[in-house]
């Protein structure tokens, strides 16, 4: 099954969220595991709620892949990364790269929740002259480490930042999220070969394994399986987990660098459109824009999630 693409925006100015989005901030120091997970869950819910309304207002976005990656983004920025607004110029900050740049709205909302960008700016998403472009640009937003959008760029750049960290003897780590369809790009496998051969234990690749790409299932397009075996063959320490489980995600991120000295590859099993019943695991929602009624229905489901 395939979907017809139509990325011609229909802007809904009347639906631009007017009320302030609040900075949620990091999991407090000394929080228990349960408290940390509760904090992340609440944050992810808020980020999803804002994200879907931004996409509705802009008339453009990639809601499916945004909702599949939000738990990963929120766990990284609000908990696992040694990175905060005060650390932006610090050479020893952890690096994060969203290689699947089409999930930009999810990144911006998470960055606002983490205090990196002014929450008021979220209402300018994709508007003329906005810094919040349809794909993240490092020249527009200080916290964005790499400009992405064309798939297959983030992982090679992450390998470079990891090599630089190793050369500097820095304890900093580099995390990069790729789409699973994105793993069809050869550049990723070239980069993985380099990462394995350089023993980049400070690198963590997270594959957002939602099993869907733009027009169809990954398996029906050009299959990736056996993905974990392939990653292992390229010298990765492979972890498979539920990419919507904040506890599993933070445990896995805390394990980087792996004791084996290998780069870590996390295959995060996710659902596109999670957790919205009518979007979840549905290829039609790659970049479909929700109607006002669908936004309301999704917000109701989110409240109950």
């Amino acid at each position, binding site marked *: 099954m395939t979907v017809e693409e139509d990325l011609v925006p229909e802007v809904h100015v009347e639906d631009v969220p007017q009320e302030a989005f609040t900075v949620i901030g990091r999991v407090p120091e000394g929080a228990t595991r349960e408290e940390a997970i509760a904090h992340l869950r609440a944050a992810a819910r808020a980020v999803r709620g804002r994200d879907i309304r931004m996409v509705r207002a802009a008339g453009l976005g990639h809601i499916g892949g945004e909702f599949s990656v939000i738990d990963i983004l929120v766990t990284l920025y609000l908990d696992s990364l040694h990175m905060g607004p005060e650390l932006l110029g610090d050479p020893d900050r952890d690096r994060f790269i969203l290689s699947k740049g089409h999930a930009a709205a999810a990144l911006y909302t998470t960055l606002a929740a983490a205090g990196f960008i002014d929450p008021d700016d979220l209402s300018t998403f*994709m508007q003329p*002259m*906005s*810094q919040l472009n349809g794909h993240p640009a490092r020249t527009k937003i200080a916290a964005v480490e790499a400009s992405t959008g064309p798939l297959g760029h983030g992982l090679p750049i992450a390998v470079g930042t990891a090599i630089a960290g190793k050369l500097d003897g820095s304890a900093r780590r580099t995390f990069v999220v790729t789409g699973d369809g994105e793993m069809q790009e*050869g550049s990723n496998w070239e980069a993985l070969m380099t990462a394995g051969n350089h023993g980049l234990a400070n690198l963590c690749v997270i594959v957002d394994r939602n099993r869907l790409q733009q027009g169809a299932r990954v398996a029906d*397009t*050009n299959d990736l399986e056996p993905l974990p075996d392939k990653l292992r063959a390229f010298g990765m320490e492979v972890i498979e987990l539920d990419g919507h489980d904040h506890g599993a995600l933070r445990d896995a991120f805390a394990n980087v660098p792996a004791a084996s000295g290998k780069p870590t590859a996390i295959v995060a099993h996710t659902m596109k459109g999670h957790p919205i019943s009518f979007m979840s695991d549905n290829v039609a929602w790659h970049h479909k824009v929700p109607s006002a009624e669908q936004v309301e229905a999704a917000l109701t489901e989110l409240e109950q999630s």
Partner: protein
Amino acid sequence: MTATAEKKLHDCRDAWVETLVELGQADPRIVAVVNDSVGSSKLGPFQSEFPERLINVGIAEQDMVGVGAGLANGGKIPFVSAASCFLTARAMEQIKVDAAYSEHHMVLVGQSPGMAYGELGPTHHSIEDLAWLRAIPNLTVVVPSDPEETRQAVRWAAQHDGPVFIRVSRMGVPDVNPAGYEFAPGKAVTLREGSDVTLIATGTVVSRALDAAELLASRGVSARVLSMPTISPLDKDAILAAAAETKGIVTVEEALTSGLGGAVAELVVQHQPVPMRFVGVTGFAPTGEVGWLLDHFGISATGIAEAASEIVGA
């Protein structure tokens, strides 16, 4: 503001896929190669009718163009179709070596070019493609301006024994060519006679050049409008005649001005130097929707008319 505003606008991808399906029905050698771009190339109807003849390599553009060359070697006529930004930027060496240097009969179809993806940003704009591709020897570069020209270019490429790039617009364009129009590769089309200045435009923005000519006429300036559907090879005779017969040339394109503008300038400066102005994209775009961006870069009737006025001193 402009006459274009009232005309019916077409997404040229519709003409492209209709024609490809027709060609596919007549010739089993016709195949399509895509990068998860069935939807963005509007290839659904071709896929339904010829599921086996649509090869989707996934998100892998270098592979896509290489596979296309292999299919050509195997006696097929491949139409390799993807968003122009990824097709050209990502697979440039495959285009150079596997298509052009190897002189394979294959057709590269750059979809939704220029700034059609608007607010998705410069990563998704294909403004460099004309400059890049005209630099490659052996490659015919065709930029249709309306659905009829798209149809004819696709048909021509299917039977032309060599590599061709066709830029297919999805940004709405009106019909600009006269009834009974016949596309001839390498030939300019005179859409409007004029004696003071010449506007040479290509693709999506030919209609804007026509609007500019109208605006200029209201100010007493007679502008010739040449549509240039083939960027490489160029119609040298039409350009040099325009340089000889009018005071100067304004080039108009939805691309970096090193595309059509650079090509025309290289010719004119050697054989018939005249004043020139270049209307087109001049840098990475800020965030904005395509119509807003075209105006931002002055690729509008008023922007083009202003450039022409500088030449004629009106």
